[in-house]
């Protein structure tokens, strides 16, 4: 993986969204996302899920872990609508909606992501006025740069 927060592509300013810079613990999450699988780290000894990923289970201190597949369903726990000044690629698509989603399978696991109208739609493709806390959402996957896929979120009832 790259060691710096690289621009996504050189295809133009609108596409220079930031890419995730995985660390050793986070890398499997992104590898599974590239296969369109949403997986969360769990302890191989006691089974507790944990996020963000880390080397050791805070419950039982085991260093063994697995990556458990999630259904990809969840609810909006909170959200924010950023306006400029922002980095250029984000300013070009502002205002957009960033949600924190509580997973249906694991309510204590929350993931940040963009709420969009379709997996590859623009960041501002959902009217922020239509978002509310508690809204049901489902995961989708978007290739943000060649080989780099991020989870995104679609409203269950658009």
């Amino acid at each position, binding site marked *: 993986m790259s*060691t710096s927060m690289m621009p996504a592509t050189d295809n133009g300013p609108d596409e220079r969204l930031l890419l995730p*810079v995985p660390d050793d613990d986070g890398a499997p999450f992104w590898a599974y996302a590239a296969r369109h699988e949403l997986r969360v780290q769990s302890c191989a000894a006691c089974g507790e899920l944990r996020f*963000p990923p880390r080397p050791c289970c805070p419950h039982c201190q085991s260093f063994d872990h697995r990556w458990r597949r999630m259904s990809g369903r969840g609810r909006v726990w909170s959200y924010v609508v950023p306006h400029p000044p922002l980095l250029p690629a984000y300013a070009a698509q502002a205002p957009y909606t960033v949600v924190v989603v509580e997973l249906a399978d694991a309510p204590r696991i929350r993931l*940040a992501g963009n709420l969009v109208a379709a997996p590859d739609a623009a960041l501002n493709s959902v009217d922020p006025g239509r978002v509310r806390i508690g809204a049901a959402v489902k995961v989708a996957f978007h290739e943000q740069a060649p080989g780099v896929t991020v989870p995104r979120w679609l409203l269950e009832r658009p």
Partner: protein
Amino acid sequence: MGATLKDAAVIAGTGRTAFAKRLPESERALACRAIVAALDDAGIAPSEVDAFASYTMEETDEVEVAKAIGAGDVTFFAKAGYGGGGSCATVAHLAAAIATGQASVGVAWRSRKRGSGPRPWRNTAVQLPTPAQWTRPFGLLRPADEIGILARRYMHEYGATRDHFFNVALACRNRANQNPAAIMYDRPLTREMYMTSRWISEPLCLFDNCLETDGALACVVVAAERARDLRHRPVYVHSVAQGLPAQHHGMVNYWTDDPLTGPAWTAARQLWKQADFGPEDVDVAQIYDAFTPLIPLSLEGYGFCGRGEGAAFTEGGALETGGRLPLNTSGGGLSEAYVHGFNLITEGVRQLRGTSTAQVPDAATCLVTAGEGVPTSALLLRS
């Protein structure tokens, strides 16, 4: 219980530069000016300084400051973590060093050129800490975006409104309007201005955000036994605390069981445990206000009201002069200057000396807090 820091050290002097959107001097020069002013205020020679404490995101190291001001041999130096969360920890570390005989005269400072310099969130070329991979690609870029998520959830859970956030912004602005050193001294705020201002990150608007400022501040800490020799009324460091809650994650703390009980709760337990008085006895508070929602969250954490009651606490002028808990009486980060919270410490000292531009009559106790939303620190000061 063994040794205690209670009232073992005093803040003997404070100093600051001007505050402005742009100052011509370097951060290093501003740091030295603030420190020399603080030592002069204390009536203590620079050659007596043998301890330094700063906090991260401070670009000027103690080695530079010590040789520039003419400090003596230095036997203690420390740097607290987490940017604005470390402001009060500097005084706590100096008080501990002095109380345990590691040093005798300590200096803490903050120098910052955030008004004219680069903003940290704009730096995309540097490897960021682990949390960045879980948030920044999605456009949670700035602290306002990160705290905005918590603010929205707080509003949802407790019925807090933008009017509550306005109460915070207004109290700070009203105090700044009494303080000629404040950047917003001559700029009154109205509800109309607040409600029609531009969004930064909904639900946070322009006036929910602190000022970006150039400036520096410093204070001098010595042992309480020295109080009788001091130029000014001594301000005692009554209780100190740091707080990093279990499973806390920093600014984007969305993954704990209860993200709305932040580091303030942890720091508060330690702070009150060591104190001779409680929240009801605090005369004036200087609470870290990088964003308005941090005030209701902190009011709850430090025990001024129950959980979920922080927003309602701001009603009826509670945070104004003469109110239940006068807040950020120099204008705070929202309206005096955002210098990573250090101006809250020096204003706490002014209140207890009786020299604030928005003096709370007979103020004898003051709470000062550092950044909430990151591992934090706090001080209880008394006269």
